[in-house]
């Protein structure tokens, strides 16, 4: 399982800011994502209208979540599949292990799934003698490096080509040491050769799901590498790992999201592969699994229904929020210290691991609002981060210095006459002290500000004092 380091967010962020490799990788991915998303959105005239429709579909589904989940489960069973309802991560791990054991599995191939990170399935399977093999290229190299993903759609975006080459040379020791890794193509060719054998050897394939369709009992995955298809069609057993909010009512609804997802995520009109899986292989089918299991995870999500955080359950994991977040772009995904980084993680992580551990995340935002402005399902991310700050404040988790500062300032702000008198005296002093240089390089109690920037000096008079004086002169 991803080791939780969210409480050390500040230290993580400081390390990330001075990590030259990470900064190089971030600088490369940022302009790409933003420009591509903008172009894709502009290229679809109804894009903005689709965002409203998508929001409404999710709101409707979440308002009737129990109904759609039961409907979905019934359709899965009717198609020969089995649904495993899992309240916790532990339940989900146990369910996956049970299925793998019953299938006598030695090797399990995996498509990309954030739920698998959330429940820590790889470590669990390994501990029980089963070898999981990540088949998404980014996830594959992270498995080699024993690192968690740093981004929900580009798990290895924090790595540079040199890192890839190093990891491949170190791990693939049976291949000639003088082979070339000059381009992406070379890396791809080697991974493809290796993974092909794994696909054929696997007893069980585990994928995530971008959507679960209640109308048909289908699970949908979108990928660009085709690894998900090989993972779910070649082995005898297919396990879908998905959380409850992935359900949508109909095929047509799913298509609304498919039109938004790739455009918001990578700026593609559509992902290279979009695959619908429904139940087990039928007699007339040429391929497909003999067993089809859906491990359906709650893990605290149903507690969000009916609270302000319900809006977060609309998330379709496109990563547009982190791709556009200046904080994420500065520190990368690992600094957030758990599975989900960026603005969506700053809202979701406190729900899943507790705000007392993840309290930094909703605070580490300027509320610039860029995330909300690109979210395909219009989640009010800044508002939800603010809700977390309110809960922290209510529970006295806000640092004492902040609480004291707020109380001190609010006491004055409630007393306009006193406030004017006090601010006037303070600004006169500061203005006089700063008149020669125009700014302060250091000031008592302002270390956070002046560590890397000056504090511009005030003019000296307050507006209110000068205005009152002018009015008196006019009257005379």
């Amino acid at each position: 399982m991803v080791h939780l380091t969210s409480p050390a967010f500040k230290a993580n962020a400081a390390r990330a800011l001075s990590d030259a490799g990470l900064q190089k990788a971030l600088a490369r991915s940022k302009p790409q994502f933003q420009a591509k998303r903008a172009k894709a959105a502009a290229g679809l005239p109804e894009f903005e209208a689709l965002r409203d429709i998508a929001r409404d579909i999710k709101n409707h589904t979440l308002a009737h979540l129990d109904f759609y989940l039961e409907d979905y489960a019934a359709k899965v069973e009717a198609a020969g599949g089995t649904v495993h309802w899992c309240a916790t991560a532990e339940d989900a791990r146990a369910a996956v292990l049970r299925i793998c054991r019953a299938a006598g599995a030695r090797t399990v191939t995996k498509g990309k799934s954030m739920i698998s990170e959330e429940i820590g399935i790889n470590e669990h399977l390994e501990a029980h003698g089963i070898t999981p093999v990540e088949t998404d290229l980014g996830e594959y190299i992270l498995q080699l490096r024993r690192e968690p993903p740093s981004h929900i759609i580009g798990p290895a975006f924090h790595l540079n080509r040199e890192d890839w080459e190093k990891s491949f040379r170190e791990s693939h020791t049976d291949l000639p040491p003088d082979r070339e890794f000059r381009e992406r193509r070379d890396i791809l060719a080697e991974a493809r050769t290796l993974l092909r054998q794994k696909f054929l050897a696997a007893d069980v394939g585990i994928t995530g799901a971008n959507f679960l369709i209640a109308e048909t009992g289908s699970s949908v995955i979108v990928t660009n590498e085709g690894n998900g298809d090989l993972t779910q069609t070649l082995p005898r057993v297919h396990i879908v790992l998905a959380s409850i909010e992935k359900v949508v009512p109909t095929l047509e609804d799913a298509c609304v999201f498919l039109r938004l997802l790739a455009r918001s995520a990578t700026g593609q009109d559509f992902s290279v592969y979009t695959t619908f899986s429904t139940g087990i292989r039928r007699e007339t089918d040429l391929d497909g699994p003999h067993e089809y299991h859906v491990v359906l995870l709650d893990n605290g999500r149903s507690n969000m229904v009916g609270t302000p955080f319900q809006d977060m359950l609309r998330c379709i994991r496109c990563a547009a929020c982190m791709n556009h977040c200046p904080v994420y772009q500065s520190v990368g995904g690992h600094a957030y210290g758990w599975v989900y980084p960026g603005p969506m993680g700053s809202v979701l992580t406190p729900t899943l691991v507790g705000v007392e551990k993840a309290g930094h995340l909703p605070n580490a935002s300027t509320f610039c609002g860029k995330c909300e402005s690109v979210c395909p399902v219009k989640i009010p991310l800044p508002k939800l981060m603010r809700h977390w700050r309110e809960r922290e404040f209510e529970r006295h988790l806000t640092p004492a210095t902040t609480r004291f500062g707020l109380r001190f300032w609010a006491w004055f702000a409630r007393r306009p006459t006193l406030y004017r008198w006090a601010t006037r005296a303070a600004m006169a002093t500061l203005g006089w002290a700063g008149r020669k240089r125009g700014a302060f390089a250091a000031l008592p109690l302002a270390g956070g500000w002046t560590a890397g920037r000056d504090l511009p000096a005030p003019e000296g008079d307050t507006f209110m004092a000068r205005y009152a004086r002018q009015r008196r002169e006019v009257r005379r």
Partner: protein
Amino acid sequence: MPEPRPRVALFVTCLVDLFRPTVGFAAIRLLEQAGCEVAVPMAQTCCGQPAFNSGDRATARDLARRVVDAFLPYDFTVVPSGSCGGMIARHIPTLFEDDPAYRGKAERLAAKTHELVSFLRDVRGMERVEAAYHGTATYHDSCSGLREMGVKAQPRALLASVAGLSLVEMAEPETCCGFGGTFCVKYPEISLRMASDKTKDIASTGADTLLAGDMGCLLNIAGRLRREGSTVRVRHVAEVLAGMTDSVPPIGAARE
């Protein structure tokens, strides 16, 4: 019969009040040029945003009630800041979800609250200003102004009428400068990194002046430029539009 002059209440904002009074006087001049009668309610201190964004809803609500009481009687409330404007126009009503009496008042106030430059242009139909400024400026879109108050084209349109001024765009004028209220002192390293990205973008335009409509961003950007030894002049857009750049040196520049 001439149209009656609308009575506009100026919400000065605490940062303008304390750091940059000239912006308040520039706002008054511009509003009067736009045919408004301007009042400055003396009961104002702060919109409550620091408390609101720190999760202290009770304090935010208390201060918000004072804002509503002081400003509701006027035809319009105008704010030389997208951030404080956004607080009044977008957020204050949400503080009174369980207080129907104030909710209605707060919503009425919200509906007639505007950021200064968008008010001049969109509500008062101001086409041009009588001002001159010699230099090349680049305009930073402050986040709340842009995303909560729809301020984007209005300042650029009015700046285009300033004699002697030419405008150049940054590569990312809409990216946050890293101020973020208390964020800048809670997470100073990240804030600084964002401020430095902003100053790099400014430098790459070759502009000699940075303009914006929010004192928070301006203090942050000016502070970082000063530390870097940059000679770029930093000013609130209202100072330039009102032709008041002679009455005060740029933000962060020496006065003597």
